[in-house]
Structure formats: C-alpha cells, structure tokens
C-alpha cells in the first residue's frame, strides 16, 4: 500500500523516525565496500561495509543523527499540532490529541538523547589498548570502545520507543495499540538493561522485563476476552457494544479489568508499580526520565482509550470508578510514603512518579463517577493531559540534572547531591525549581496542573452535597466521596513536600564532597535551563495560557 501525499504529511514525524531508524542501521556501515558485478570484473561501490569513511566511522554520528531526527520529528509534530486530522487505513487516526502526545514523546526522547550524548559519550579518540597501557587504562579504553560500538544500538532503540509510543497514541484499534505498546516496551526493556556491565543494569532490566511481560501478557489475555465478547477490537465498535450492553457482561468486565493491570503497570499504579523504582534506579537517568514521563503518558493514553472512550457510559457512573479511586488513593499514598525515606534520588523520583500517577488516576476516577457535566469531565482530562505535558519539563528535568551528576560520578545516593548549590548554582537552582514544581508550589507549572486536577475534582463533586444541609457534618455525609479525593490529593502533596524539600535541603545546606564544578555539557546544561524557564513560564501568564489552549484543543478531539 502506497501512502498518499496527504497521508504522508499526516504522519510525517513518524516517517522521519522510520527513516531515522533505517539510516541508523545503514549509515554507520557506509564505507568504500565494492562489489564485483557477477560475471564481470567490474567492481561497483555498494557503500555498505568495507573501510568506513571518516564521517560514517565517527562514533558520534548516531547520537547526533538521532538528535537531529528527534528534533525534526518534534518540530513537525509541533507544526501539525493545530492542524492534524485524518485517518490512515482502519487503525490509525491522527488528531490534535495524538499529535500533542507525540509532541510530548518526542520532546522527552529528544531531551533524553541529548543527555545521553553526555551520559554515554562517544569518544573519538578511543583506540585499542596496547601492551604498554596499564590495566586501568586499558580497561577504560575498552569500555570507551564498547560505548562507541553500541552508540547506534541505543539510539535505534530510542527511536523505536518513540515510534511505538506515537503509533500507540494514533491507533484506533485495541490490538494495534497493544502491538505499539509492545514495540515501545520491548525497546524500553533493553534500554533499562543497557548498561549490562553494571550489575544493577542487568538486574533492573530483568525485573522490569519479567514484571512488564507478565503485565502485558495479562493485558493481552484481557484483550482477548474483550475480543471474545465483542468480536472486534475497534474502539468505536467496542464503545458501541459497551453502551448497548444492558447489564455488565462479566467477560467484558474481566477483560477490561485485566487490561487495567497492564496499563496500571505502565503508569506505575499501585500495586503494579513495584518494579518501577528498581528499573529507574538501575537504568541511566535519561532512560529513567523517559520511563517517568513519556512511558507514563503512554500508559495514560491507553487508560483514556479504554476507560473513557470505551467503557464510559453516557449517563451515570462507570463500573470502575470506585475501584480507580481506591487505587488512586493507595497509589499516591504509597508513592509518597515510600519516597519519604528513600535515600536514592532516582528511587525517590520513581516513587514520586508513582504518586503523580495516583493524582492523575484520582482525576480519572472523578470523571468515571459520572457526576460532572461533559464540560467538567473534559476539564479534568485537560488537567491530566496538561499535567502529562508539563511533567516532561520538570520530572525529566530533574532526571537530566541527575544525569549531569552521572556524567562524572553517580547519582544514586542523596549525598551525591550534597552542596550542589556551591558547586553549580545554576543546576541547583534548576533542581530546586523542578522539585517545587513536582510538589506543586505556585507559581510553577506543576502547581497549575495540580490545581486544574483538584479543580476538576472539586468541580465535579463539590456540588453533590445536599444543599439543604445546614451544618458541616450533614453536608459532609451527603457529598459524594469523590470530593475527598481532592482532600487526599492535597494532603499527599503536603506529604510529598517533605522529600522534595530534602533534596533542596541537601543541595543548599550540606557540604559537598568535592567542590569541583560540574562538567559544562553545553547542550544538556542549556536544555535544563530552558526546561527551568519553561517550568516557570508555563505556570502562569501567556505561556500557560498557550499551552492550556493546545491541550484544550487536543482533548476536544479525543
């Protein structure tokens, strides 16, 4: 099947990614190889193999190329974000929403790639060790060479993750969505385990893989049950059959329930989140950042599809809303509590990401309660999508700061952050802003998104209290329990402040082990500064207004 021009334009960023993957496979192998034409003596250059040219032999090529590819994809997603609309075949539909999501995914991956060029640098000067080299020196050389060799692997996997995520967002078919998720996930498993020479890398990958596979197997099984029930996996069909269902069909409910397990793993909702902290802690910071932002966004898109698009009735409450509310409360509390004493910044951020998942689940639960008008529900969705969007700024930003630290040392202990303020005030300042944004302190964008979510919940539920109740207690009894989700969220954000502030505290308070400033890492540093700026910029004023406009448009097309 040949795509028409319009269709190609529609999925241009994805095509660029595909091209990028192909190029990544080919380009580093381009050399002066020649092939003798059969039966002749003519040797024509086929360019694959042989001695590589200087350009293609450059180990930095894959990294730079991927950054360029992601930049292009990011740019085109952004350009199409207002206009995108159309379908390709039966399973792909491009809307503003999907473009927004791919915009998020590419943005996150782009930043991760930039960080990786410093985190796992390609060394042009690396050479094979000689006998005269000391053991340490030769070890270093070998590992540098190894890093050089696997540059391309890493970046190809990154692009695959991107491709899978964005296809997932575009899919209109449950099965296709699953396949896309698998594409992204399988690539992500490898990325987690990428530093296989470190004991933790392999372990993190193995755990993440095993648990993830069980989860997705469960999800596929659930999906198969849904298939058995409906005979089709197209969203529209499923939605129709769901709404035409008189009473809940156990088959469908079990199917959806099992899928929830799979998506719950993706968004790291309790109790499916347990592997996530291990995975974050064992992988490199940029990868962990991707898991915490893009991967989570992917999971939420899936949840939207299944919960909102398919199983949400026109009137009344969805069958899952109480369940989701409980999961939400458990998730946020668990995440925050566990993060409280975590001494490993990456683990702590992982738990914090669990907590954030809890907040968003609570918002979805409020939608599921069916109490609100469609506008109110839409507002909640806007809040969630907005949150997912800006999460890229400060959650990934925090991971990027950690990867700044990782360039020269490690970042899996709180004391690695000690005295960052005196070593590198800009990075410490950025980290401070990120932490406050995560905690939801105004006027940062993290506050706005949290405010919108609470706002949505309050909007949906606060009006349900009996208007004739003259005192607080009768009113509190009469109000829908969904209202208490808002209270749970704010209490949890207060709890979360504790560990976010501790990071700030050690940065500004403790004495650093070495007073050496961090490596300059030009692009990474400036990316972080840009992220810091955007974290503030999207918090209030025209920036926030603009982003909110984008999200609103996007959600309206969902």
């Amino acid at each position, binding site marked *: 099947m040949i795509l028409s021009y319009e269709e190609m334009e529609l999925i241009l960023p994805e095509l660029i990614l595909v091209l990028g993957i192909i190029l990544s496979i080919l380009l580093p192998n381009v050399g002066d190889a020649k092939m003798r034409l059969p039966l002749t003596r003519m040797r024509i250059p086929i360019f694959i193999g042989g001695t590589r040219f200087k350009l293609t032999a450059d180990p930095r090529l894959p990294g730079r190329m991927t950054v360029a590819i992601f930049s292009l994809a990011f740019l085109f997603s952004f350009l199409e974000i207002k206009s995108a609309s159309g379908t390709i075949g039966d399973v792909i539909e491009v809307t503003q929403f999907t473009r927004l999501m791919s915009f998020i995914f590419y943005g996150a991956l782009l930043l991760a790639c930039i960080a990786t060029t410093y985190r796992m640098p390609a060394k042009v000067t690396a050479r094979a060790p000689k006998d005269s080299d000391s053991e340490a020196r030769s070890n270093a050389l070998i590992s540098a060479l190894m890093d050089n060799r696997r540059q391309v692997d890493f970046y190809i996997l990154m692009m695959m993750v991107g491709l899978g995520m964005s296809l997932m967002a575009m899919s209109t078919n449950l*099965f296709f969505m699953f*396949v896309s998720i*698998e594409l992204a996930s*399988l690539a992500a*498993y*490898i990325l987690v*385990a990428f530093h*296989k*020479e*470190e*004991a*933790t*890398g*392999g*372990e*993190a*990958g*193995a*755990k993440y*893989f*095993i648990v993830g*596979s*069980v989860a997705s*197997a*469960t999800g*596929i*099984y659930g*999906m*198969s*049950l849904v*298939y*058995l029930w409906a*005979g*089709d*996996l197209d969203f529209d069909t499923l939605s129709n059959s769901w709404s035409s269902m008189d009473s809940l069909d156990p088959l469908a409910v079990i199917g959806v329930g099992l899928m929830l397990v799979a998506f719950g793993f993706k968004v790291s909702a309790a109790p499916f989140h347990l592997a996530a*902290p*291990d995975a974050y*802690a*064992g992988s490199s910071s940029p990868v962990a950042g991707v898991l915490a932002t893009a991967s989570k966004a992917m999971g939420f898109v899936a949840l939207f599809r299944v919960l909102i698009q398919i199983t949400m009735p026109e009137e009344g409450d969805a069958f899952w809303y109480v369940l989701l509310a409980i999961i939400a409360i458990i998730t946020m509390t668990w995440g925050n509590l566990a993060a409280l004493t*975590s001494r490993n910044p990456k*683990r702590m951020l992982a738990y914090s990401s669990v907590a954030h998942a809890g907040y968003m689940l609570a918002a979805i639960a409020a939608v599921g309660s069916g109490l609100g008008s469609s506008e109110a529900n839409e507002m909640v969705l806007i809040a969630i999508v907005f949150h997912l969007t800006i999460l890229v700024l400060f959650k990934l930003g925090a991971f990027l700061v950690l990867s700044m630290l990782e360039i020269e040392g490690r970042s899996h202990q709180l004391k690695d952050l000690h005295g960052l303020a005196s070593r590198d005030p800009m990075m410490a300042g950025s980290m401070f802003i990120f932490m406050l944004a995560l905690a939801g302190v105004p006027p940062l964008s993290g506050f706005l998104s949290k405010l919108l979510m609470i706002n949505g919940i309050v909007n949906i539920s606060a009006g349900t209290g009996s208007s004739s109740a003259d005192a607080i207690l009768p009113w509190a009894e009469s109000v829908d329990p969904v209202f208490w989700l808002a209270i749970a969220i704010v209490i949890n954000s207060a709890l979360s402040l504790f560990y976010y502030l501790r990071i700030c505290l050690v940065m500004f308070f403790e004495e650093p082990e070495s007073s050496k400033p961090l490596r300059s890492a030009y692009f990474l540093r400036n990316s972080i500064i840009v992220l810091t700026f955007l974290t503030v910029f999207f918090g209030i004023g025209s920036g926030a207004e603009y982003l909110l406009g984008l999200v609103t448009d996007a959600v309206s097309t969902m």
Partner: protein
Amino acid sequence: MIEISWIVGLGVILFGIGLVGAFSRKNAIVVLMCIELMLNAANLNFVAGALYYESVDGWVFTAIAIAIAAAEVAIGLAILLSLYSTQDTISLDEANLLKN
C-alpha cells in the same frame, strides 16, 4: 467441532498456570516460559473468537501475538544473559541488589 467454551476454558487454565508459575518459580527462564503460556492463553481466545465470529481478525491477532511472544523471548533471554553475566544467577530471588 469443539465447543468455543472448551477452547476458552483451556485458555483460562493455561493463563492460570502461567500466572501462578510466574510468581511461584524462581528460575527466570521458567518464568519466561510461564509468560509464554499466558500469551498462548490469549492466542487461544483469539482463535476461539475468530471461530465464533467467523472473522479473520482473530487469526491475524494470533499470528501477530505469536510474533510478539517470540520477540519477547528473544529480548528476555538477552536480558537474562546479561543478568547472568554480572550476577552469576538467573534466580529472581537472588538478584536483589535493587530493593526497598
């Protein structure tokens, strides 16, 4: 012809075995196999659905699911190999440097 329910029932049993095996066995390879079982349970359902609805979709799903399973095994083995090379074990209980 076999009743659909029998096929589905077999699927349930397979899924159950797979799930129980996944959390009761220490050996990662065995767990991998259990995951395969779970996937196959899904495949059975797809097949049953295809039969029931007389639709080709189910067959396509099955085929792709098998492919996914294969990819999964490939990746899984690779990851387990790297685990083994650093920690000399593929027991899921013993590999617990990362915890809490």
